[in-house]
């Protein structure tokens, strides 16, 4: 089943054979190409190449064209400050500076960088028709903040009708942007409105719900799927967001996944999220990422859930972390491994290796899930056994299954990150890769020669 079909199934709350995976690649695409965010977001070719590289590296079921909530604001005349490692920031707010809505630049498919993202969308869709392509548009409240600055909060109190007028205008812009993305081949329109986290449910219902409900209705009328993205501590507004009738709600780590599952489930809406951006994806190890993703997958289940980061991936998120999640999503075997490791390894002491090494022997350790129940582990153990038997008495080998505490202790002591792995004299030599007998024997012999020289 293609990624697009999987996402469509999840959106209508049908059980999926595996959880769909949508890495929100924005300027991380620039990182993959080794260019800066400034150049990346101003070139249709770079954006296309970045998304292409991400699709090849992370095998996603869906992917955004771009993740830049400043595109519409820039097109309307807001000044941007560019950065090498982040999307640009809006630094001028025309409606705060005395302009009226009528004074703003006309918003068309030719404004600002809109032609670039539309061209990118068309090229990606042509190359990858089976992947769900997400067009991300700036939600009306966030666009209103760009246009008016933080004065919008005072304006909401002092001039509710004027605020409604601005939000209605921003919604019109969002509707046009949604239309442009749909024409360019996007399968999902995601309305990204992080500002929603800033207000209480009553204000949300008064100011945001009426225009956004219309927006989702418009997207539905075009037979395109929709999602409502929020980041920040917006738990208070999840129910009201569901009442705007999107097909999906996507959240970040500030909101517990089980809470969102319960609320969206009750409303017949699918949900997604909420991989931790900074502490896990950016700063964690591949194994930590897998454990965390597995926790999300277990909490969410296989009905109506899309695994995704909480928001735009930090530019320098290590590729190996996202590849580890890709592996977890696609491999039931890896899911079993991570499930076994879900025991809190931080409370387990690494094995004491002082008695483990032998002066007159090469020590080979095979760290496995369990060779009696896992085929790759079984073949790896057999390969080691055959090579060790052939090599002679100067080789000893041990299997350490992580189903036992001893196995986890050994894994920690040897610093092994993936399973199964063959370590020779404490060095991880073959990681998830079963070597031919000759290659393994050569490796062992190398260690043996070295050992003899030392003695």
């Amino acid at each position, binding site marked *: 089943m293609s990624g697009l079909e999987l996402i469509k199934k999840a959106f209508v709350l049908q059980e999926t054979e595996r959880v769909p995976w949508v890495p929100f690649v924005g300027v991380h695409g620039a990182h993959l190409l080794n260019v800066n965010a400034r150049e990346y977001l101003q070139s249709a070719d770079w954006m296309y190449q970045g998304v292409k590289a991400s699709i090849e590296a992370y095998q996603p079921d869906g992917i955004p064209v771009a993740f830049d909530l400043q595109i519409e604001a820039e097109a309307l005349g807001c000044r941007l400050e560019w950065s090498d490692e982040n999307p640009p920031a809006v630094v001028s707010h025309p409606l705060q500076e005395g302009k009226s809505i009528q004074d703003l630049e006309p918003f068309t498919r030719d404004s600002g960088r809109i032609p670039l993202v539309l061209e990118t969308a068309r090229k990606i869709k042509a190359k990858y028709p089976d992947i769900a392509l997400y067009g991300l548009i700036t939600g009306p409240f966030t666009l209103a903040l760009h246009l008016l600055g933080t004065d919008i909060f*005072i304006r909401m109190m002092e001039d509710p009708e004027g605020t409604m007028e601005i939000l209605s205008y921003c919604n019109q812009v969002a509707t046009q942007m949604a239309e442009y993305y749909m024409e360019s081949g996007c399968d999902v329109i995601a309305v990204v409105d992080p500002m929603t*986290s800033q207000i209480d449910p009553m204000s949300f219902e008064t100011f945001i719900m009426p225009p956004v409900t219309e927006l989702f209705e418009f997207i539905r009328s075009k037979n395109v799927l929709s999602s409502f993205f929020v980041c*920040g501590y917006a738990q208070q507004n999840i129910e009201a967001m569901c009442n705007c009738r999107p097909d999906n709600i996507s959240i970040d780590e500030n909101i517990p996944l089980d809470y969102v599952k319960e609320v969206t489930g009750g409303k017949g809406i699918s949900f997604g999220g909420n991989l931790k*951006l900074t*502490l896990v994806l950016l700063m964690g190890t591949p194994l930590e990422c897998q454990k965390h993703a597995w926790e999300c997958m277990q909490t969410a289940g296989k009905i109506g859930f899309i695994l995704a980061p909480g928001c735009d991936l930090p530019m320098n998120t290590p590729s190996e972390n996202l590849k580890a999640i890709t592996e977890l999503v696609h491999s039931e075997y890896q899911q079993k491994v991570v499930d076994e490791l879900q025991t809190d390894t931080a409370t387990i002491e690494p094995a004491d290796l002082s008695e483990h090494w032998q002066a007159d022997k090469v020590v080979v350790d095979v760290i496995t899930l369990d060779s009696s129940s896992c085929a790759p582990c079984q073949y790896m153990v057999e390969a080691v056994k055959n090579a060790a038997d052939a090599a002679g008495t100067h080789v000893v080998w041990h299997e350490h299954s992580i189903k036992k505490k001893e196995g986890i202790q050994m894994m920690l002591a040897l610093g092994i990150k993936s399973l199964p792995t063959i370590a020779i004299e404490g060095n991880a030599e073959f990681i998830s890769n079963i070597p031919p007998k000759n290659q393994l024997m050569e490796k062992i012999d190398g260690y043996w020669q070295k050992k003899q020289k030392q003695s």
Partner: protein
Amino acid sequence: MATQKKIPFILVTGFLGSGKTTFLLNLIRKYNRQYKIAVIQNEFAPGNIDGSIIRSEFENIEMLEINNGSVFCLCLLSDFIEKAGNFIAEYQPDVIVLEASGLSDPLAIAEILQQEPLSRYVYLSKIWTLVDAVNFEKLARFQTTIQNQVHIAHEVIINKIDLNSDAADAIQEIVKKINPQAVIHQSTYANAEISITMDTIPESGANKQQVPPGTRPDIQVAVYKSSRVLDNLDVERLVQMMVEAEVIRAKGYLKVSNSTLIAFQYSYGRADYFPMQNPTGRSELIVLGGDINPRKLKNMIEAAQFINATNG
């Protein structure tokens, strides 16, 4: 073995226009000779392009501007971590003050500070929140971030009181309802009697750290945040565990049932806690100690739940 000297990190929050920059200027004037202060600004304020307000008065203050947009989104915290880490490592100040964006969530920043790499250099010492007497009553009704900023503050400064003196008592009452344990100041021109104090680990106790003369011990910070109900939580037992773990200070809220949120404060062995009038919100606790980390704090809370459950 010499312990690494960690730098107290003070978080100054408040809505745009509440007087954070003026407050910072006052603070620097007061402590500039006593401490080497470094300032991180993450706020777009008209007229304060490139931190010019502070730089124009204090040439010797080390400043870092992180102007990549108002940080209300976690997407942008990674940039903060890297830049702040390099800045602190380079200048090694005595105190760091962060003027956070008016839209930022203080607890999200606290969580970043408790993790490597920033936890190597700094510990979150205090959260000070400014509110603007002119707009606060209106804004606090619906702007949840302002409520969150007041909710988690150690001290709240109600500023510009001269411009709305009739409402001073009413504003103070609203602040108290949101955060009954905060120290509240009323001020004009952000002039409040607020002090920078250096936290110390108690000299007594089994876990006493061996600290060379002239250095401060290594203070750790842990943040706990959860929307789940802490069923069967024995708060008294939690306090005992904090005493045993030589916690220095703790402040926050504990959601012990769907209708009970406890305001909790602990300082050097003494705790004060009571149910909030308005019980909405999640559990959030910021704990300082010589030997605390997020995992230990979580275990401590779970143990205080478990013991109560097993004792019936």
